[in-house]
Protein backbone atom coordinates (compact mmCIF):
# COMPACT_ATOMS: atom_id res chain seq x y z
CA UNK A 1 0.00 0.00 0.00
CA UNK A 2 1.41 3.44 -0.90
CA UNK A 3 2.30 5.91 1.88
CA UNK A 4 0.07 8.91 2.54
CA UNK A 5 1.98 11.28 0.24
CA UNK A 6 2.01 8.79 -2.62
CA UNK A 7 -1.62 7.89 -2.00
CA UNK A 8 -2.73 11.52 -2.14
CA UNK A 9 -1.07 11.98 -5.53
CA UNK A 10 -2.30 8.80 -7.20
CA UNK A 11 -4.76 9.55 -9.97
CA UNK A 12 -8.43 9.27 -9.03
CA UNK A 13 -8.65 6.31 -11.43
CA UNK A 14 -5.83 4.51 -9.59
CA UNK A 15 -7.34 5.36 -6.21
CA UNK A 16 -10.69 4.10 -7.49
CA UNK A 17 -9.22 0.75 -8.54
CA UNK A 18 -7.67 0.29 -5.08
CA UNK A 19 -11.01 1.18 -3.46
CA UNK A 20 -12.90 -1.20 -5.74
CA UNK A 21 -10.51 -4.04 -4.93
CA UNK A 22 -10.76 -3.21 -1.21
CA UNK A 23 -7.02 -2.63 -1.01
CA UNK A 24 -7.75 0.89 0.21
CA UNK A 25 -10.48 2.25 2.45
CA UNK A 26 -12.36 5.48 1.57
CA UNK A 27 -11.73 6.57 5.16
CA UNK A 28 -7.98 6.07 4.75
CA UNK A 29 -7.95 8.05 1.49
CA UNK A 30 -10.01 10.86 2.96
CA UNK A 31 -7.78 11.06 6.03
CA UNK A 32 -4.70 11.34 3.79
CA UNK A 33 -6.29 14.41 2.11
CA UNK A 34 -7.46 15.94 5.40
CA UNK A 35 -4.00 15.56 6.92
CA UNK A 36 -2.45 17.41 4.00
CA UNK A 37 -5.08 20.16 4.22
CA UNK A 38 -4.37 20.48 7.92
CA UNK A 39 -0.62 20.65 7.32
CA UNK A 40 -0.43 22.93 4.30
CA UNK A 41 -3.66 24.79 3.62
CA UNK A 42 -3.00 27.45 6.25
CA UNK A 43 -0.56 28.82 3.65
CA UNK A 44 -2.10 27.79 0.33
CA UNK A 45 -5.72 28.63 1.25
CA UNK A 46 -7.43 26.32 -1.23
CA UNK A 47 -10.46 25.86 1.01
CA UNK A 48 -12.94 28.25 2.54
CA UNK A 49 -14.87 25.48 4.30
CA UNK A 50 -13.64 21.94 5.00
CA UNK A 51 -16.50 19.49 5.66
CA UNK A 52 -14.39 16.99 7.61
CA UNK A 53 -17.10 15.46 9.78
CA UNK A 54 -19.68 15.07 7.02
CA UNK A 55 -17.00 13.74 4.69
CA UNK A 56 -15.83 11.16 7.24
CA UNK A 57 -19.41 9.99 7.75
CA UNK A 58 -19.80 9.60 3.97
CA UNK A 59 -16.45 7.80 3.72
CA UNK A 60 -17.54 5.30 6.39
CA UNK A 61 -20.79 4.75 4.49
CA UNK A 62 -18.84 4.21 1.23
CA UNK A 63 -16.61 1.75 3.05
CA UNK A 64 -19.65 -0.23 4.21
CA UNK A 65 -21.24 -0.15 0.75
CA UNK A 66 -18.12 -1.38 -1.01
CA UNK A 67 -17.54 -4.05 1.63
CA UNK A 68 -21.06 -5.37 1.12
CA UNK A 69 -20.77 -5.50 -2.65
CA UNK A 70 -22.62 -2.27 -3.43
CA UNK A 71 -19.85 -0.72 -5.47
CA UNK A 72 -21.22 2.26 -7.42
CA UNK A 73 -18.41 2.86 -9.90
CA UNK A 74 -15.01 4.53 -10.37
CA UNK A 75 -15.76 7.59 -8.21
CA UNK A 76 -17.11 5.64 -5.25
CA UNK A 77 -15.17 6.80 -2.19
CA UNK A 78 -13.24 9.48 -4.10
CA UNK A 79 -12.90 12.85 -2.29
CA UNK A 80 -13.68 16.00 -4.29
CA UNK A 81 -14.00 19.72 -3.65
CA UNK A 82 -16.14 22.35 -5.34
CA UNK A 83 -15.70 26.02 -6.04
CA UNK A 84 -17.63 27.89 -3.37
CA UNK A 85 -19.93 29.23 -6.05
CA UNK A 86 -21.92 25.99 -6.20
CA UNK A 87 -24.82 25.53 -3.81
CA UNK A 88 -24.47 22.85 -1.15
CA UNK A 89 -27.43 21.96 1.01
CA UNK A 90 -26.83 22.98 4.61
CA UNK A 91 -23.23 24.06 3.94
CA UNK A 92 -22.44 27.74 3.65
CA UNK A 93 -21.72 28.98 0.17
CA UNK A 94 -19.81 32.26 0.41
CA UNK A 95 -19.24 32.98 -3.29
CA UNK A 96 -15.89 34.30 -2.07
CA UNK A 97 -17.54 37.47 -0.83
CA UNK A 98 -18.09 39.08 2.55
CA UNK A 99 -21.56 40.02 1.29
CA UNK A 100 -22.74 36.41 1.14
CA UNK A 101 -20.67 35.09 4.06
CA UNK A 102 -23.73 33.60 5.78
CA UNK A 103 -25.55 32.15 2.77
CA UNK A 104 -26.57 28.55 3.46
CA UNK A 105 -28.46 27.03 0.48
CA UNK A 106 -31.34 24.60 0.93
CA UNK A 107 -30.32 22.55 -2.10
CA UNK A 108 -27.33 20.98 -3.85
CA UNK A 109 -26.25 21.99 -7.34
CA UNK A 110 -27.08 19.27 -9.87
CA UNK A 111 -23.40 18.48 -10.41
CA UNK A 112 -22.96 17.84 -6.69
CA UNK A 113 -26.07 15.66 -6.56
CA UNK A 114 -24.65 13.62 -9.43
CA UNK A 115 -21.20 13.22 -7.89
CA UNK A 116 -22.78 12.17 -4.59
CA UNK A 117 -24.93 9.66 -6.49
CA UNK A 118 -21.73 8.26 -8.02
CA UNK A 119 -20.43 7.73 -4.48
CA UNK A 120 -17.91 10.60 -4.46
CA UNK A 121 -17.33 12.41 -1.16
CA UNK A 122 -17.52 16.20 -0.81
CA UNK A 123 -14.48 17.27 1.20
CA UNK A 124 -14.95 21.04 1.08
CA UNK A 125 -15.77 24.36 -0.57
CA UNK A 126 -12.91 25.95 -2.47
CA UNK A 127 -11.59 29.51 -2.52
CA UNK A 128 -12.32 31.73 -5.49
CA UNK A 129 -12.23 35.23 -6.86
CA UNK A 130 -15.21 37.15 -5.48
CA UNK A 131 -18.45 35.96 -7.12
CA UNK A 132 -16.34 33.99 -9.59
CA UNK A 133 -15.26 37.22 -11.30
CA UNK A 134 -11.57 37.50 -12.09
CA UNK A 135 -9.63 40.44 -10.72
CA UNK A 136 -10.05 40.17 -6.94
CA UNK A 137 -7.32 42.13 -5.15
CA UNK A 138 -7.95 41.17 -1.53
CA UNK A 139 -9.45 37.75 -0.79
CA UNK A 140 -11.77 37.80 2.24
CA UNK A 141 -11.12 34.12 2.99
CA UNK A 142 -7.35 34.23 2.61
CA UNK A 143 -4.95 34.78 -0.28
CA UNK A 144 -4.84 31.60 -2.42
CA UNK A 145 -1.26 30.67 -3.31
CA UNK A 146 0.40 28.55 -5.96
CA UNK A 147 1.68 25.22 -4.58
CA UNK A 148 4.70 25.34 -6.90
CA UNK A 149 5.76 28.66 -5.37
CA UNK A 150 3.52 30.33 -2.78
CA UNK A 151 4.77 33.80 -3.75
CA UNK A 152 3.04 33.24 -7.09
CA UNK A 153 -0.68 33.27 -7.88
CA UNK A 154 -2.70 30.12 -8.64
CA UNK A 155 -4.82 31.97 -11.27
CA UNK A 156 -8.58 32.12 -11.08
CA UNK A 157 -11.33 32.47 -10.67
CA UNK A 158 -11.56 28.80 -9.55
CA UNK A 159 -8.31 29.27 -7.61
CA UNK A 160 -8.82 26.76 -4.81
CA UNK A 161 -10.21 24.24 -7.29
CA UNK A 162 -6.83 24.28 -9.01
CA UNK A 163 -4.70 24.28 -5.86
CA UNK A 164 -6.51 21.35 -4.17
CA UNK A 165 -5.94 18.49 -6.65
CA UNK A 166 -2.44 19.82 -7.43
CA UNK A 167 -1.58 19.67 -3.71
CA UNK A 168 -3.11 16.28 -2.95
CA UNK A 169 -5.92 17.89 -0.92
CA UNK A 170 -8.56 16.09 -3.04
CA UNK A 171 -8.73 13.77 -6.02
CA UNK A 172 -10.51 16.35 -8.16
CA UNK A 173 -12.54 19.55 -8.11
CA UNK A 174 -15.40 21.18 -9.89
CA UNK A 175 -14.90 24.74 -11.07
CA UNK A 176 -16.83 27.27 -13.12
CA UNK A 177 -15.53 28.69 -16.40
CA UNK A 178 -17.11 31.76 -18.02
CA UNK A 179 -13.98 33.11 -19.75
CA UNK A 180 -11.18 30.85 -18.53
CA UNK A 181 -11.82 30.23 -14.84
CA UNK A 182 -11.27 26.46 -14.98
CA UNK A 183 -8.52 26.34 -17.59
CA UNK A 184 -6.39 29.15 -16.12
CA UNK A 185 -6.07 27.65 -12.61
CA UNK A 186 -5.52 24.22 -14.13
CA UNK A 187 -2.67 25.73 -16.15
CA UNK A 188 -1.18 27.68 -13.25
CA UNK A 189 -1.23 24.71 -10.86
CA UNK A 190 0.01 22.03 -13.27
CA UNK A 191 -3.17 19.95 -13.60
CA UNK A 192 -5.94 19.20 -16.13
CA UNK A 193 -9.03 21.44 -16.42
CA UNK A 194 -11.95 21.13 -18.83
CA UNK A 195 -14.41 23.74 -20.00
CA UNK A 196 -17.19 21.53 -21.46
CA UNK A 197 -19.47 22.57 -24.30
CA UNK A 198 -22.16 24.97 -23.08
CA UNK A 199 -25.21 22.80 -22.38
CA UNK A 200 -23.26 19.59 -21.71
CA UNK A 201 -23.34 20.07 -17.92
CA UNK A 202 -26.25 21.49 -15.94
CA UNK A 203 -25.70 24.93 -14.43
CA UNK A 204 -28.47 24.47 -11.88
CA UNK A 205 -27.33 25.44 -8.41
CA UNK A 206 -24.38 27.51 -9.59
CA UNK A 207 -24.57 31.19 -8.63
CA UNK A 208 -23.18 32.72 -11.83
CA UNK A 209 -25.49 34.93 -13.98
CA UNK A 210 -23.31 35.00 -17.14
CA UNK A 211 -26.06 33.04 -18.81
CA UNK A 212 -24.60 32.81 -22.33
CA UNK A 213 -21.15 31.56 -21.33
CA UNK A 214 -21.11 29.98 -17.84
CA UNK A 215 -20.01 26.33 -17.71
CA UNK A 216 -19.08 23.92 -14.93
CA UNK A 217 -16.12 21.60 -15.45
CA UNK A 218 -13.70 19.28 -13.63
CA UNK A 219 -10.11 19.92 -12.55
CA UNK A 220 -8.08 16.74 -12.04
CA UNK A 221 -4.54 15.38 -12.00
CA UNK A 222 -4.93 13.36 -15.21
CA UNK A 223 -7.02 13.38 -18.37
CA UNK A 224 -8.51 9.97 -17.54
CA UNK A 225 -9.69 11.39 -14.19
CA UNK A 226 -11.29 14.26 -16.05
CA UNK A 227 -13.30 11.82 -18.17
CA UNK A 228 -14.55 10.11 -15.00
CA UNK A 229 -15.77 13.36 -13.47
CA UNK A 230 -17.36 14.60 -16.71
CA UNK A 231 -19.06 11.24 -17.22
CA UNK A 232 -20.68 11.59 -13.80
CA UNK A 233 -21.91 15.18 -14.16
CA UNK A 234 -22.82 15.47 -17.87
CA UNK A 235 -26.30 15.13 -19.32
CA UNK A 236 -29.66 16.82 -19.51
CA UNK A 237 -31.21 18.41 -16.46
CA UNK A 238 -34.74 19.79 -16.66
CA UNK A 239 -33.81 22.41 -14.07
CA UNK A 240 -31.39 24.02 -16.54
CA UNK A 241 -33.43 25.02 -19.62
CA UNK A 242 -30.28 25.39 -21.72
CA UNK A 243 -28.87 21.95 -20.93
CA UNK A 244 -28.68 19.65 -23.92
CA UNK A 245 -30.70 16.47 -24.43
CA UNK A 246 -27.89 14.88 -26.49
CA UNK A 247 -26.76 11.50 -25.28
CA UNK A 248 -23.56 11.46 -23.25
CA UNK A 249 -20.92 9.26 -24.91
CA UNK A 250 -18.49 6.98 -23.08
CA UNK A 251 -15.58 9.38 -22.70
CA UNK A 252 -13.06 6.84 -21.40
CA UNK A 253 -13.62 4.79 -24.58
CA UNK A 254 -12.11 7.68 -26.59
CA UNK A 255 -8.74 7.40 -24.85
CA UNK A 256 -6.10 5.93 -27.14
CA UNK A 257 -2.32 6.09 -27.15
CA UNK A 258 -1.94 7.56 -30.64
CA UNK A 259 -3.31 10.37 -32.78
CA UNK A 260 -3.17 8.75 -36.20
CA UNK A 261 -5.68 10.23 -38.62
CA UNK A 262 -6.22 13.46 -36.68
CA UNK A 263 -5.49 16.95 -38.00
CA UNK A 264 -4.61 19.49 -35.33
CA UNK A 265 -4.46 23.22 -36.02
CA UNK A 266 -2.29 25.66 -34.10
CA UNK A 267 -4.07 29.03 -33.76
CA UNK A 268 -1.49 31.61 -34.76
CA UNK A 269 -2.98 34.60 -32.91
CA UNK A 270 -3.42 32.66 -29.67
CA UNK A 271 -0.06 30.88 -29.75
CA UNK A 272 2.61 33.24 -30.99
CA UNK A 273 1.35 36.75 -30.16
CA UNK A 274 3.59 39.55 -28.90
CA UNK A 275 4.24 38.97 -25.24
CA UNK A 276 4.25 35.17 -25.20
CA UNK A 277 6.87 34.02 -22.67
CA UNK A 278 9.96 32.46 -24.24
CA UNK A 279 9.65 29.30 -22.11
CA UNK A 280 5.97 28.92 -23.08
CA UNK A 281 6.99 29.29 -26.72
CA UNK A 282 9.66 26.61 -26.50
CA UNK A 283 7.39 24.27 -24.54
CA UNK A 284 4.71 24.72 -27.22
CA UNK A 285 7.20 23.95 -29.99
CA UNK A 286 8.26 20.79 -28.16
CA UNK A 287 4.61 19.80 -27.62
CA UNK A 288 3.91 20.08 -31.35
CA UNK A 289 6.80 17.71 -32.03
CA UNK A 290 5.31 15.19 -29.60
CA UNK A 291 1.88 15.46 -31.24
CA UNK A 292 3.42 14.88 -34.68
CA UNK A 293 5.30 11.83 -33.39
CA UNK A 294 1.99 10.47 -32.08
CA UNK A 295 0.71 10.48 -35.65
CA UNK A 296 -1.20 13.76 -35.88
CA UNK A 297 -0.96 16.10 -38.83
CA UNK A 298 -0.22 19.57 -37.43
CA UNK A 299 -0.97 22.72 -39.38
CA UNK A 300 -1.33 26.40 -38.55
CA UNK A 301 -4.53 28.43 -38.89
CA UNK A 302 -5.50 32.04 -38.33
CA UNK A 303 -8.45 33.26 -36.26
CA UNK A 304 -8.39 36.94 -37.13
CA UNK A 305 -11.40 37.78 -34.97
CA UNK A 306 -10.09 36.07 -31.84
CA UNK A 307 -8.54 39.33 -30.70
CA UNK A 308 -12.03 40.76 -30.15
CA UNK A 309 -13.10 38.01 -27.77
CA UNK A 310 -12.02 39.61 -24.52
CA UNK A 311 -13.78 42.98 -24.91
CA UNK A 312 -16.84 41.25 -26.38
CA UNK A 313 -17.14 38.96 -23.41
CA UNK A 314 -16.68 41.85 -20.97
CA UNK A 315 -19.25 43.92 -22.87
CA UNK A 316 -21.83 41.13 -22.75
CA UNK A 317 -21.31 38.57 -19.96
CA UNK A 318 -20.08 41.22 -17.52
CA UNK A 319 -23.21 43.26 -18.28
CA UNK A 320 -25.42 40.21 -17.69
CA UNK A 321 -23.77 39.62 -14.31
CA UNK A 322 -23.72 43.31 -13.41
CA UNK A 323 -27.46 43.60 -14.06
CA UNK A 324 -28.05 41.05 -11.30
CA UNK A 325 -25.49 42.50 -8.91
CA UNK A 326 -26.69 46.09 -9.33
CA UNK A 327 -30.17 45.30 -8.12
CA UNK A 328 -29.08 43.04 -5.28
CA UNK A 329 -26.00 44.59 -3.76
CA UNK A 330 -23.96 47.03 -5.82
CA UNK A 331 -26.09 50.07 -4.95
CA UNK A 332 -26.17 49.36 -1.24
CA UNK A 333 -23.03 47.32 -0.37
CA UNK A 334 -20.42 49.04 -2.57
CA UNK A 335 -17.70 49.08 0.08
CA UNK A 336 -18.22 45.42 0.97
CA UNK A 337 -17.08 44.36 -2.51
CA UNK A 338 -13.40 44.04 -3.38
CA UNK A 339 -12.29 47.04 -5.44
CA UNK A 340 -11.55 44.83 -8.48
CA UNK A 341 -15.03 43.30 -8.40
CA UNK A 342 -17.02 46.46 -7.82
CA UNK A 343 -15.27 48.54 -10.48
CA UNK A 344 -15.57 45.74 -13.05
CA UNK A 345 -19.25 45.28 -12.24
CA UNK A 346 -19.85 49.02 -12.33
CA UNK A 347 -18.35 49.16 -15.82
CA UNK A 348 -20.70 46.34 -16.84
CA UNK A 349 -23.66 48.33 -15.48
CA UNK A 350 -22.84 51.29 -17.70
CA UNK A 351 -22.72 49.56 -21.10
CA UNK A 352 -25.67 50.92 -23.15
CA UNK A 353 -28.17 48.31 -24.37
CA UNK A 354 -27.47 49.31 -27.96
CA UNK A 355 -23.77 48.51 -27.52
CA UNK A 356 -24.61 45.22 -25.79
CA UNK A 357 -26.81 44.27 -28.74
CA UNK A 358 -24.09 45.02 -31.28
CA UNK A 359 -21.55 43.12 -29.19
CA UNK A 360 -23.82 40.06 -29.24
CA UNK A 361 -23.88 40.27 -33.04
CA UNK A 362 -20.09 40.48 -33.11
CA UNK A 363 -19.91 37.43 -30.82
CA UNK A 364 -21.87 35.47 -33.42
CA UNK A 365 -19.18 36.34 -35.99
CA UNK A 366 -16.30 35.35 -33.70
CA UNK A 367 -18.02 32.07 -33.02
CA UNK A 368 -18.74 31.44 -36.70
CA UNK A 369 -15.08 31.94 -37.61
CA UNK A 370 -14.04 29.36 -35.00
CA UNK A 371 -16.68 26.82 -36.08
CA UNK A 372 -15.77 27.31 -39.77
CA UNK A 373 -12.11 26.68 -38.91
CA UNK A 374 -13.01 23.54 -36.97
CA UNK A 375 -14.73 22.22 -40.10
CA UNK A 376 -11.23 21.80 -41.56
CA UNK A 377 -9.53 20.08 -38.65
CA UNK A 378 -10.23 17.91 -35.61
CA UNK A 379 -8.95 20.20 -32.88
CA UNK A 380 -7.40 23.60 -32.25
CA UNK A 381 -4.23 24.08 -30.20
CA UNK A 382 -2.62 26.92 -28.28
CA UNK A 383 -1.05 27.48 -24.86
CA UNK A 384 -3.59 27.80 -22.04
CA UNK A 385 -1.66 30.75 -20.62
CA UNK A 386 0.87 32.86 -22.48
CA UNK A 387 2.92 33.35 -19.32
CA UNK A 388 3.74 31.17 -16.35
CA UNK A 389 1.96 32.27 -13.15
CA UNK A 390 3.47 35.56 -11.93
CA UNK A 391 4.06 36.91 -8.46
CA UNK A 392 0.88 37.69 -6.57
CA UNK A 393 1.41 41.40 -6.18
CA UNK A 394 2.39 41.88 -9.84
CA UNK A 395 -0.67 40.00 -11.08
CA UNK A 396 -3.25 42.08 -9.22
CA UNK A 397 -5.63 43.80 -11.62
CA UNK A 398 -5.14 47.33 -10.32
CA UNK A 399 -6.43 49.67 -13.02
CA UNK A 400 -4.91 53.14 -12.66
CA UNK A 401 -4.22 53.93 -16.32
CA UNK A 402 -5.60 52.91 -19.76
CA UNK A 403 -2.39 50.89 -20.23
CA UNK A 404 -3.28 48.88 -17.10
CA UNK A 405 -6.63 48.07 -18.67
CA UNK A 406 -4.97 46.81 -21.86
CA UNK A 407 -2.24 44.84 -20.14
CA UNK A 408 -3.82 43.55 -16.94
CA UNK A 409 -7.41 43.05 -18.06
CA UNK A 410 -7.63 42.56 -21.84
CA UNK A 411 -4.41 41.08 -23.28
CA UNK A 412 -3.76 38.45 -20.63
CA UNK A 413 -7.10 36.73 -21.32
CA UNK A 414 -6.57 36.19 -25.06
CA UNK A 415 -5.59 32.53 -24.71
CA UNK A 416 -8.88 31.33 -23.22
CA UNK A 417 -11.69 33.75 -24.13
CA UNK A 418 -12.08 32.93 -27.85
CA UNK A 419 -13.09 29.31 -27.08
CA UNK A 420 -15.49 30.61 -24.43
CA UNK A 421 -17.04 32.93 -27.01
CA UNK A 422 -17.63 29.94 -29.26
CA UNK A 423 -18.83 27.82 -26.32
CA UNK A 424 -16.79 24.85 -27.49
CA UNK A 425 -15.06 22.26 -25.29
CA UNK A 426 -11.49 23.13 -24.34
CA UNK A 427 -9.02 21.49 -22.00
CA UNK A 428 -5.82 22.71 -20.36
CA UNK A 429 -3.15 20.17 -19.40
CA UNK A 430 0.47 20.27 -18.26
CA UNK A 431 2.97 21.04 -21.05
CA UNK A 432 6.14 21.40 -18.98
CA UNK A 433 7.81 23.52 -16.33
CA UNK A 434 9.93 26.65 -16.50
CA UNK A 435 13.46 26.72 -15.15
CA UNK A 436 11.90 28.17 -11.97
CA UNK A 437 9.61 25.12 -11.70
CA UNK A 438 6.39 26.87 -12.62
CA UNK A 439 3.86 25.01 -14.80
CA UNK A 440 3.07 25.83 -18.40
CA UNK A 441 0.04 24.40 -20.15
CA UNK A 442 -1.27 23.19 -23.49
CA UNK A 443 -4.87 23.89 -24.56
CA UNK A 444 -6.91 21.67 -26.91
CA UNK A 445 -10.35 22.68 -28.23
CA UNK A 446 -12.76 20.86 -30.54
CA UNK A 447 -16.22 21.06 -32.09
CA UNK A 448 -19.27 21.52 -29.87
CA UNK A 449 -20.06 18.34 -27.91
CA UNK A 450 -16.86 16.69 -29.12
CA UNK A 451 -15.27 16.38 -25.70
CA UNK A 452 -14.19 12.89 -26.80
CA UNK A 453 -11.68 14.34 -29.29
CA UNK A 454 -10.43 16.86 -26.74
CA UNK A 455 -9.82 13.99 -24.31
CA UNK A 456 -8.23 11.80 -26.97
CA UNK A 457 -5.64 14.42 -27.98
CA UNK A 458 -4.94 15.44 -24.38
CA UNK A 459 -4.60 11.86 -23.13
CA UNK A 460 -2.24 10.77 -25.90
CA UNK A 461 -0.03 13.82 -25.27
CA UNK A 462 -0.14 13.29 -21.50
CA UNK A 463 0.90 9.64 -21.77
CA UNK A 464 3.79 10.54 -24.08
CA UNK A 465 5.20 13.14 -21.67
CA UNK A 466 6.30 13.05 -18.02
CA UNK A 467 4.56 16.22 -16.77
CA UNK A 468 1.51 14.60 -15.11
CA UNK A 469 3.84 12.60 -12.85
CA UNK A 470 5.30 15.75 -11.26
CA UNK A 471 3.74 17.03 -8.04
CA UNK A 472 4.79 19.88 -5.78
CA UNK A 473 6.93 18.79 -2.84
CA UNK A 474 5.05 20.99 -0.40
CA UNK A 475 7.23 20.20 2.62
CA UNK A 476 10.29 21.47 0.74
CA UNK A 477 8.62 24.32 -1.17
CA UNK A 478 6.75 25.80 1.78
CA UNK A 479 9.74 25.39 4.11
CA UNK A 480 11.93 27.20 1.59
CA UNK A 481 9.34 29.97 1.18
CA UNK A 482 9.11 30.48 4.92
CA UNK A 483 12.90 30.65 5.36
Amino acid at each position, binding site marked *: MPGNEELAFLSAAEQGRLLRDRKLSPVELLRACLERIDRYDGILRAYITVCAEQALAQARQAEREIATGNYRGPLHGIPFGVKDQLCTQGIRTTLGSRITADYVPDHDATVIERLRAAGAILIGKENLHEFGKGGTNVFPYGQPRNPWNPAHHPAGSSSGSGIAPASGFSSGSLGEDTGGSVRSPAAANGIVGLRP*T*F*GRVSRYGGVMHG*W*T*ADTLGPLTRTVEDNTLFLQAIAGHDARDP*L*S*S*TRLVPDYAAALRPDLRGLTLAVVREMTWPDGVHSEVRSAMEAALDVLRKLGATVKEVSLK*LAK*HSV*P*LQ*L*LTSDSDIAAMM*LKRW*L*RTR*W*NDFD*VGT*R*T*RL*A*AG*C*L*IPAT*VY*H*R*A*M*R*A*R*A*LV*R*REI*LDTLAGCDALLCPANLNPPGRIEAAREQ*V*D*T*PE*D*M*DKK*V*LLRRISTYPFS*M*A*NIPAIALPMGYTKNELPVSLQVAA*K*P*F*DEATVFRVAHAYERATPWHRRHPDLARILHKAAA
Partner: protein
Amino acid sequence: MKLTRDQVKVLAAAVDLEIPEQDLDNVTIRVSALLSAMENIEAELGEAMNSVEPLPPVFPREDF
Protein backbone atom coordinates in the same frame (compact mmCIF):
# COMPACT_ATOMS: atom_id res chain seq x y z
CA MET B 1 -14.48 56.57 -26.88
CA LYS B 2 -12.83 58.36 -24.03
CA LEU B 3 -15.42 59.31 -21.44
CA THR B 4 -14.91 61.94 -18.76
CA ARG B 5 -15.52 61.39 -15.07
CA ASP B 6 -18.60 63.59 -15.28
CA GLN B 7 -20.04 61.57 -18.15
CA VAL B 8 -19.53 58.38 -16.17
CA LYS B 9 -21.27 59.96 -13.19
CA VAL B 10 -24.27 60.75 -15.40
CA LEU B 11 -24.34 57.23 -16.85
CA ALA B 12 -24.21 55.80 -13.33
CA ALA B 13 -26.98 58.10 -12.13
CA ALA B 14 -29.18 56.78 -14.95
CA VAL B 15 -29.04 53.32 -13.34
CA ASP B 16 -29.27 54.74 -9.82
CA LEU B 17 -25.69 53.90 -8.95
CA GLU B 18 -23.48 56.27 -7.01
CA ILE B 19 -19.80 55.59 -7.64
CA PRO B 20 -17.60 56.90 -4.83
CA GLU B 21 -14.97 59.44 -5.81
CA GLN B 22 -12.05 57.08 -5.07
CA ASP B 23 -13.24 54.54 -7.66
CA LEU B 24 -14.42 56.93 -10.35
CA ASP B 25 -11.17 57.04 -12.35
CA ASN B 26 -10.97 53.24 -12.32
CA VAL B 27 -14.53 52.82 -13.65
CA THR B 28 -14.00 55.61 -16.21
CA ILE B 29 -10.91 53.84 -17.60
CA ARG B 30 -12.73 50.51 -17.78
CA VAL B 31 -15.85 51.82 -19.56
CA SER B 32 -13.81 53.97 -21.94
CA ALA B 33 -11.63 50.99 -22.89
CA LEU B 34 -14.63 48.75 -23.58
CA LEU B 35 -16.45 51.37 -25.65
CA SER B 36 -13.24 52.09 -27.59
CA ALA B 37 -12.81 48.39 -28.28
CA MET B 38 -16.38 48.27 -29.56
CA GLU B 39 -15.68 51.22 -31.87
CA ASN B 40 -12.80 49.25 -33.38
CA ILE B 41 -14.99 46.17 -33.75
CA GLU B 42 -17.71 48.23 -35.45
CA ALA B 43 -15.12 49.67 -37.82
CA GLU B 44 -13.88 46.19 -38.76
CA LEU B 45 -17.08 44.15 -38.64
CA GLY B 46 -19.99 46.59 -38.68
CA GLU B 47 -21.34 45.53 -42.07
CA ALA B 48 -21.01 41.84 -41.30
CA MET B 49 -22.69 42.38 -37.94
CA ASN B 50 -25.75 43.69 -39.75
CA SER B 51 -26.25 40.33 -41.41
CA VAL B 52 -26.19 38.05 -38.36
CA GLU B 53 -28.71 37.68 -35.56
CA PRO B 54 -27.56 38.61 -32.05
CA LEU B 55 -28.30 35.08 -30.86
CA PRO B 56 -26.75 34.06 -27.60
CA PRO B 57 -24.16 31.45 -28.50
CA VAL B 58 -25.75 28.45 -26.82
CA PHE B 59 -26.17 25.03 -28.33
CA PRO B 60 -29.06 22.92 -27.06
CA ARG B 61 -30.68 22.28 -30.44
CA GLU B 62 -27.92 22.88 -32.99
CA ASP B 63 -26.40 20.32 -35.31
CA PHE B 64 -22.70 19.96 -36.06
